[in-house]
């Protein structure tokens, strides 16, 4: 068994991500694209294909008509991404992936500012940044 992480995102336009983008831009944060996904971290012993099949079979978690599944290389935020978890619910996150106009992943400073200004309420949430 090893710790694995998957990201479930929308295939269709993500209104919540677009709203986050326009609000972050209104706050003066240098971001041109925001992607949102649900991040699940779980212990799993099989290969990627088996992991994908087991998640795709759970219709409460994954709807093939609207969702895209990505198995992450490591159970940690990707470059430009911050994971937000509700306090006490640490194996399930919302991943916010930010990039600039050139498509480069947002740096840590931008991610921290985005969290402090909008994406994370420290009273009830915890942010995990890329290492």
């Amino acid at each position, binding site marked *: 068994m090893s710790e694995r992480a998957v990201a479930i995102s929308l295939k269709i336009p993500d*209104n*919540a991500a677009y*709203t*986050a983008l326009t*609000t972050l831009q*209104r*706050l003066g944060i240098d971001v041109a694209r925001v992607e949102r996904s649900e991040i699940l971290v779980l212990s799993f012993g099989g290969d990627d294909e088996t992991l994908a099949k087991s998640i795709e079979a759970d219709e409460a978690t994954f709807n093939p008509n609207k969702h895209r599944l990505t198995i992450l290389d490591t159970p940690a935020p990707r470059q430009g991404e911050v994971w937000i978890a*509700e*306090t006490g619910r640490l194996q399930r996150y919302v991943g916010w992936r930010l990039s600039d106009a050139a498509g480069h992943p947002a740096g840590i400073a931008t991610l921290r500012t985005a969290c*402090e*200004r*909008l*994406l994370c*309420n*420290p*009273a*009830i*949430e915890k942010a995990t940044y890329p290492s």
Partner: protein
Amino acid sequence: MSRRIAVLVFPGTNSEGETVRLLRDCGGDAHVVHWSRAATLPEYDAYVLPGGFAYEDRIRAGAIAAHDVMMDDVIVGARAGKLVFGICNGAQVLLEAGLVPGTGEIRRPTAAFTRNGPVPHFVNVFTWVKLAIEPSRCRITASLPHDALVPAWTAHGEGRLAADDAHLKEIEAGGHVAFVYAHADGATDPSAVPNQSALGVAGLVNREGNVLALMPHPERDGWTFNHPDRRRGDDMLAPSGGAVLFKSFVEAVSRS
């Protein structure tokens, strides 16, 4: 000249109809102001943020609305001493905006009304909320009697006050707990709290006493027909218990 009250409508707000109607029944000059008319907000003397799901509660309940241009004017008005009353989702917006408890910076929340405990669940029950401060501590409650009990429908999935220990102590010691959940006889034991809200909190007030955030809906007990104990033969359009808080608010607006 009468003081004008704006009832703000963000995309996703609901309850604005009964809120305006009850404010008017209590003598207030209340008007619905949609987001497309945000530029008119400075003309108003007080603001009410009703319930609903502003901006679909994207990111978090109240988070996007707290950064809406309408809130720019509400924040300016609150700092200038205008009265601001948030109900349910409106209360969540006020916490996300940092106006209540007001112990941190604007738009840097130190607390939240978040998922009900012990497990996430939606509550839709008739409740009582009890005034937990001196009535004059909050200008909006100034006309209520001591220990006032106000009936209000609790209808939310995210109404549990949460903050870290230091901020909870600040909220308690600073007199920010305006209303707590109670039984009909005024008892305030934990069994009266439908959502495991910290300190049994149903409503918070800022330090200056002009901004009140209340999770349950008093406007949904505004008339007898709303009240669960109504009886055949009652005047169904007579004011019910929830109207007393709106009347106190309207009186405070007229004094402002």
